[in-house]
């Protein structure tokens, strides 16, 4: 990889007709990192990626790649390349021709292009399959051809638009590891779009969660999972029970919260005033004990056995909770009254 570039969006807005897809988006991506744009469908993540590729032009604002303003530059003159969700392999060209296509477009001599294409195929472990048509390759192989085709151009930034969504679950895990390995080995900047939070957590240096055309939260994977800023993030990054609670006091960087008659300590974060707040609790951070009386309790309404864990629904004063319990040997039937306690991890105060 000859060069690797940063990406900057400055106050970018994109309007389609009367619909505003992106509201005043500003972000910075450091060179050599893999950043994921994560969000539900329609959140604007793909539009953001397409603006970076030059396939859409922003209504206002500026986009810089490697410090250079590319806002008005057409796609084919930008130093980025993209792996498409459908792979978009040209069906009438062989794998090698597909990989060589961009090289030839950039003005390389045919011979050099062929050589570099072979090298690219070798890089993704497809040496020797260059003569096959895309229809003669498996889904995973097609995906790798698409990656090779984008990588041989040595772009400043590699864009990946849901690159795993057409693969089956098993393959998905392997390919995402491969992509991450390749990125770390070659050290290029990558922008990765997905709606799958597991995928995002697994591959990213940083994650940008988007909602309704705005950034909802941005940070390292661990930060987002363990300290979600809003109930949307808490629920989107893995499941979470969101329940009201009272902040009753502070102790160093800990906050004391009360639920019914139960008190619990959680990291304080940026809460400064006692009073009503919200709590996001992961389903596996809740501990259930059968008990008739408890400081904070409820009644099991549904239970389901799922092999390595049991899923419960528990009706409480704070609403219905979803609980995952690894103790499969002790399964609580419906109508069991239970006492509820929390583990120390997987619980966070949220501010919105």
């Amino acid at each position, binding site marked *: 990889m000859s060069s690797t570039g940063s990406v900057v969006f400055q106050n970018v807005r994109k309007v389609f007709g009367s619909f505003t897809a992106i509201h005043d988006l500003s972000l910075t991506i450091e060179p050599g990192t893999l950043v994921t744009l994560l969000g539900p469908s329609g959140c604007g993540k793909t539009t953001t990626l397409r603006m970076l*590729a*030059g*396939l*859409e*032009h922003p209504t206002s604002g500026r986009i810089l790649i490697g410090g250079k303003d590319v806002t*008005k*530059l*057409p*796609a*084919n*003159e*930008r130093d*980025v*390349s*993209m792996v*498409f*969700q*459908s792979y*978009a*392999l*040209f*069906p*009438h060209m062989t794998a090698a021709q597909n990989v060589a*296509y*961009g090289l030839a*477009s*950039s003005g390389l001599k045919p011979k050099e292009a062929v050589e570099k294409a072979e090298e690219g195929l070798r890089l993704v472990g497809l040496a020797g399959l260059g003569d096959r*048509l*895309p*229809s*003669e390759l498996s889904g995973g192989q097609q995906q790798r051809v698409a990656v090779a*085709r*984008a990588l041989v*151009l040595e772009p400043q930034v590699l*864009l990946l638009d849901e690159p795993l969504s057409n693969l089956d679950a098993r393959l998905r895990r392997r390919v995402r590891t491969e992509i991450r390995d390749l990125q770390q080995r070659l050290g290029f900047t990558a922008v990765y779009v997905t709606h799958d939070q597991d995928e995002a957590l697994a591959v990213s240096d940083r994650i940008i969660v988007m909602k309704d055309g705005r950034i909802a939260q941005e940070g390292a994977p661990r930060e987002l999972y363990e300290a979600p800023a809003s109930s949307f993030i808490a629920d989107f990054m893995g499941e979470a029970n969101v329940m009201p609670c009272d902040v009753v006091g502070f102790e160093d960087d800990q906050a004391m919260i009360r639920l019914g008659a139960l008190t619990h300590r959680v990291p304080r974060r940026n809460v400064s005033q006692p009073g009503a707040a919200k709590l996001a609790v992961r389903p596996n951070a809740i501990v259930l004990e059968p008990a008739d009386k408890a400081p904070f309790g409820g009644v099991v309404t549904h239970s389901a056995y799922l092999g390595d864990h049991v899923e419960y629904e528990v009706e409480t004063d704070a609403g219905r909770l979803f609980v995952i319990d690894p103790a499969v040997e002790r399964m609580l039937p419906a109508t069991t009254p239970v006492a509820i306690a929390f583990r120390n991890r997987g619980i966070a105060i949220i501010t919105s």
Partner: protein
Amino acid sequence: MGKSNRRLDWCFAAGIIALLLLPWYRIERGGFFGFSWLGNFPRGSNEAPGLLQATMHGRWWLWVAIALFAVAILIRVASPQSERRGSWLALIGGLGLGFLALQGLAIGFAGWTWMISENTLGPLSTGQPAMGAGAITLSIIFTLIFSFGMAERGALKGDTFVVGAISLLVLLVSVFVFYPLISMFIGAFQDFDGSFKPDGFLRNIVDPSIWSLNCVIDAGRCGIAWRTFFLAIITALGSTILGLAFALVATRTGFRFKKGLRLLTILPIITPPFVIGLALILLFGRAGVVTLTLSNLFGIEPGRWLYGLTGIWIAQVLSFTPISFLVLIGVVEGVSPSMEEASQTLRANRWRTFWHVSLPLMKPGLANAFLIGFIESMADFGNPLVLGGSHGVLSTEIFFAVVGSQNDPSRAAVLAIVLLCFTLSAFLAQRLWLGRKNFATVTSKGDSGNHAALPRSINIGVHALVIPWAIFTLVVYGMIVAGGFMKTWGLDNSFTLEHYIRAFSIAFTDNGIVWTGVAWNSFWTTMKIALASAPLTAAVGLLTAYLIVRQRFAGRELFEFALMMSFAIPGTVIGISYIMAFNLPPLEMTGTAAILIACFVFRNMPVGVRGGVAAMKQLDQSLDEASLTLRANSFRTIRKVILPLLRPAITAALVYSFVRAITSISAVIFLVSAEYNMATSYIVGLVENGEYGVAIAYSSALIVVMILIIACFQLLVGERRLRRRPEQAGAVLPVPVPEEKAA
């Protein structure tokens, strides 16, 4: 960065050549490609290039264009690539093109064309001939400067190729579709010398021979507009009913010759439009087989009933039933079987199901077929020309107003406007009113099940319609084949090759082959022109399809609508409008091969557009986007990715436009010249001279040629589809588009 400047530099180099080295005006004798102008170049006042025209020959107005061009060069040199520069270039390009068009229209052979400019600016010492190589090149250069400027401003994501293609297409469509129509409207108010004279228009627009309703009031004759209108209504009714019957038989019964019925749909594509009329004359004319047999057997006096609306009606229903059949097959198959099954489970019998479920669901499709039949009948020129006699319809009357003894272009223009109003109303009704009412598309995906069988009475009814009509069609086409081999139709039915020999004889002399047959001249002209126009049509059509499907630009929907509207412009109207537009400066093209080619390209282009749009929609857009992100520009994307994947659509468009160029008559008959005579107009000439034998021999030869061409392409495409390219978009050929026109 450098790319943009390099493009501009090429542009400027071409512009300088246009101003210095190409004759600015049209070369009358021999044409540009005759190169006889080289003798007088660059001094002759007709042959001089633009710059010398302005300095030496008193065409001072050209300085404006030259100055604008120079300013564009200055801007390019003085400022670096930027949005601002783009705006300036776009402005200069637009002004330059606008000015060239304006001066061309304002200044004719004898000076100012418009009184108002003469009064304000004073008389000119010299006029100017039509635009030539130099002027046309510079117009294109200005268009390119405009589009490069727009691209530099960031229009359409800064894609120069796309902006350039759209600008050029809009220019071409304006020049070859809208400019002629506007000229025709103006022509209605003008006299020969171009002066404003509304008398002709006023006299014609109220002419009782057009608008009289006497046939309703008393026994007199109705005006030609009403007669054409009534004819179109009954033709549309007839062809829709027959088309529906054929469609029902082909899809809902156990009829044994279903596949044969489907073959019928190919007939209207390969049949020159007047051939049916001709065959009817051979059957029912005064010397026709049927007429003579009846007269011999029963002593029925041979009548002239065929020559008039009745005959035209029969010929048109024969011609357009296959088109209606084609439209209605889709409609009948589109009715969701589960609806009919639902109806039957709700205790409705077959009759009730058909009458209350199936038929209402088909209604929009039936209305569509009716409107297509209406437009086709209105636009039909060949059959009325052969059968009309003195009882003409609008399209033939337009023709006779120009070529006949009347020679009244104003009348022709008025009639053309009336005809255009009828067809455009039908087209608008079809698009706006029916556009939203398509029940056939509401079927859900997993729709399986069987169509309900027809009620018994209807089953018998459709067979009773279809079988005789199919036999009748076969007999008519049989006539066409047989007619060429009979000595004198009706009088002497002995076998002869005489007609074919007269048309297609070849002599071998010492000087090689001599094409002695009378048909060869027009045959080769037809082939050449069809061969030249087919690739152009396909290219323009598919490029337009690409722009419509893949690019979002301001006015795209209007552009598409305008293109599709040109479907509804009858060929006769195009013919008359081309004569009125291209007979005088600024663009003089009448009598050349170019005007025929332009006519075919812009008349048949909508079909290419339609096929291209359908095929392009099957191609995943991410393929083009992938190509763009792989550093390829749009042009390379089209060449390397889209075209190879669209190959079936391309061949279909090529074949279709080739065949249409051979069979069309209505527009062509206005545009042919002694030098460039087309087969169809030559055959019509033969018919007018009463040489039926040669005419029919020539027609059947044409039909055979076209069948061969279609078969060849079918084979080629069929072969390609055997190969393992599963993702290829499979548009099958030839695609006879429902809205096509036969005239």
